[in-house]
């Protein structure tokens, strides 16, 4: 029994080591290799460790990073699956690499983000202390299918782990509906009023009641379909969350919030911009609360937090500040566009669209995103560049948002693109790079050949 764990752990480590030598950031193969030798490797390795498992459409990585920051401040020992390796294979590899050869954990806690489709398999194996469902938006229908299907997958996962505390978004009528179908202890988070300083889009993925199909009414909305919803037909409605933000103001690179933790109010500066990041922070606070971490520690961690891998990080390219923000669906991209629209500094904008499996092979979602709004602040854009496998589609999306097609630069070669960015921004204009998932990995890889940037498996 023990020997097969050891073999599986060794296999995982050797294959991880080999992949690093050949310079690949691949994070799923080692776990697959390990699972060949011990099928329930993940179950065995996660046995004696308190796990917080984060799933949902948007904000998984940022939420995980904030939880980790809070744990660090609280003096917990923990590990994370850092590289966005969030399928069962990648998660298994993370546990393997963070245990002893005989399968004992090296840490007390683990912060694990999990793909929504993988959740129903991963969750029953791990039986986490806490489950966080950030939100649900339409995403990659080619991969996930209908949104109700995703919801059901999450339900199956939670049902098999009845002792877990479940953190749910009170403002999201889709994922909040889980509250009625599970018997777990629940901690809710949400915004108690719409944020000041935003002019949000309300492109809704859920205008009709998930219970009875009548249209919702809203006392207020924050963005997309999130807000204080109410169904006058069947009575389904938002519940008052225990963890909430009131009096929120969105600033250039941060947000001011009155953070409420079980009716205690803390005035708090969140070191991340955008309404979506307030939700990420609140879900992290709720998760921290499930581990009974002191409020003061949580508040301190929120203001010192530095953003997660690719979601909103700033890289230094010979003095050019390159802001990298992952985009993968209309709701997420619209939030980034809203954020950019509030920033009047001159900048270079680079959009990179791939259509690999992990990005979603269907790229038509870009037509739902508000590119017309990018046009409204085009006077702050020094240049706009499109790249990636589907750069041509981005170009016409911009053309139909009334950009002059002759002014859109299409460059699929990353090496040339990097040279262009750096030479063009000699006068230190910041560059904003908005890649999809695999585009972010590829582009980072190209960057790392020329610049010293954090390797993605670290």
């Amino acid at each position, binding site marked *: 029994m023990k020997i097969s764990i050891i073999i599986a752990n060794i296999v995982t480590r050797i294959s991880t080591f080999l992949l690093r030598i050949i310079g690949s950031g691949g994070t799923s193969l080692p776990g697959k290799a390990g699972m060949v030798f011990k099928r329930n490797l993940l179950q065995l390795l996660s046995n004696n460790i308190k796990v917080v498992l984060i799933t949902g459409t948007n904000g998984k990585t940022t939420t995980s990073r904030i939880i980790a920051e809070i744990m660090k401040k609280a003096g917990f020992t923990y590990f994370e699956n850092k590289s966005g390796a969030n399928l069962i294979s990648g998660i298994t590899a993370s546990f393997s690499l963070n245990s002893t050869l005989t399968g004992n954990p090296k840490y007390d806690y683990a912060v694990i983000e999990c793909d929504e489709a993988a959740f129903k398999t991963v969750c029953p194996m791990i039986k986490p202390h806490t489950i966080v469902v950030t939100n649900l938006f339409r995403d990659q229908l080619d991969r996930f299918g209908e949104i109700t299907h995703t919801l059901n997958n999450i339900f199956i996962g939670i049902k098999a782990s009845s002792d877990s505390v479940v953190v749910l978004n009170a403002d999201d009528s889709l994922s909040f509906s889980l509250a009625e179908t599970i018997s777990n202890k629940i901690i809710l988070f949400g915004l108690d009023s719409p944020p000041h300083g935003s002019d949000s889009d309300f492109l809704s993925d859920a205008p009709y009641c998930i219970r009875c199909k009548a249209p919702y009414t809203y006392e207020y909305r924050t963005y997309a379909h999130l807000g204080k919803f109410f169904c006058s037909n069947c009575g389904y409605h938002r519940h008052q969350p225990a963890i909430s933000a009131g009096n929120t103001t969105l600033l250039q690179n941060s947000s001011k919030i009155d953070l409420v933790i079980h009716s205690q109010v803390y005035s708090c500066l969140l070191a991340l911009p955008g309404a979506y990041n307030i939700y990420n922070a609140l879900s992290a606070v709720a998760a921290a609360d499930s581990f009974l971490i002191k409020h003061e520690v949580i508040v301190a961690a929120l203001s010192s937090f530095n953003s997660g891998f690719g979601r909103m990080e700033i890289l230094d390219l010979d003095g050019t500040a390159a802001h990298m923000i992952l985009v993968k669906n209309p709701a997420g991209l619209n939030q980034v566009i809203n954020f950019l629209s509030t920033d009047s500094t001159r900048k270079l904008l680079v959009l990179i669209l791939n259509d690999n499996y992990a990005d979603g092979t269907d790229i038509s979602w870009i037509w739902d995103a508000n590119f017309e709004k990018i046009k409204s602040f085009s006077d702050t854009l020094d240049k706009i560049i499109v790249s990636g496998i589907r750069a041509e*589609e981005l170009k016409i999306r911009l053309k139909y948002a009334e950009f002059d097609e002759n002014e859109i630069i299409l460059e699929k070669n990353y090496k040339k693109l990097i040279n262009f960015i750096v030479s063009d921004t000699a006068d230190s204009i910041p560059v904003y790079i908005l890649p999809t998932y695999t585009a972010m990995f590829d582009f980072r890889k190209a960057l790392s050949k020329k610049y010293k940037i954090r390797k993605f498996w670290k």
Partner: protein
Amino acid sequence: MDKLKLCHLYPDLLNLYGDRGNIISMQKRLEWRGISLELTEISVGNDFIADSYDIVFIGGGQDFEQEILLTDLSEEKKKNIRYAVKSGVVFLAICGGYQLLGTHYKNWNDIQYDFTGAIDIHTIGHKKRMIGDFTFKCSDSALAGLTVAGFENHSGKTYLGGAVKPLGEIIKGSGNNGEDQTAGARYKNVFCSYSHGPLLPKNPVLCDYILKTALIRKYGDYNLSVLNDSAEIAAGNYIIKKLK
């Protein structure tokens, strides 16, 4: 200024990935030629008055939304949609919208849902989805073998009745049912396709053909000025080349 009136039917229910792109494409290509487009959204609880519009657009939806729609689709609304098709209003219907114009949909549990019956097509649900980039060659003689590129994602298999012609013949992909090589449907001024996610932006010749059909119906013989479509064609060609 010449003007077309477009009705977007069930915009809040049938709006799956990128359907809005078809409307943006029509609107911009008209505007760039000095023709305006008046957009009306008709959804649950609104009457659909058949002869108010030159073009009707219906997008695709998920099962959850389709069920909401069925409760709204009264006999009156069905009759008006049938009448609009009969009187030559231009329709562009995608995925769920395409199925909706047919007589019925039978799911894999053998439960039948009756639709509008505006055109003689019907759909049988299957468990296996047909997903991916696809290409087809247009059948209308005026389009002279134009190759169209799109992305399909559907579990329904649609079959055409005798009076309904396919919009095109499959080159690569599944099309209507993965069996008979047909792609989409054509009947009077109705255009249907499983290319969900915008069909028109990267197929500008098809877009203009649909617009011209509506303009001729309204104004008689009509000349559309030529636009520079190199960017649009490059986007379509990427798919066409990839599937070759």
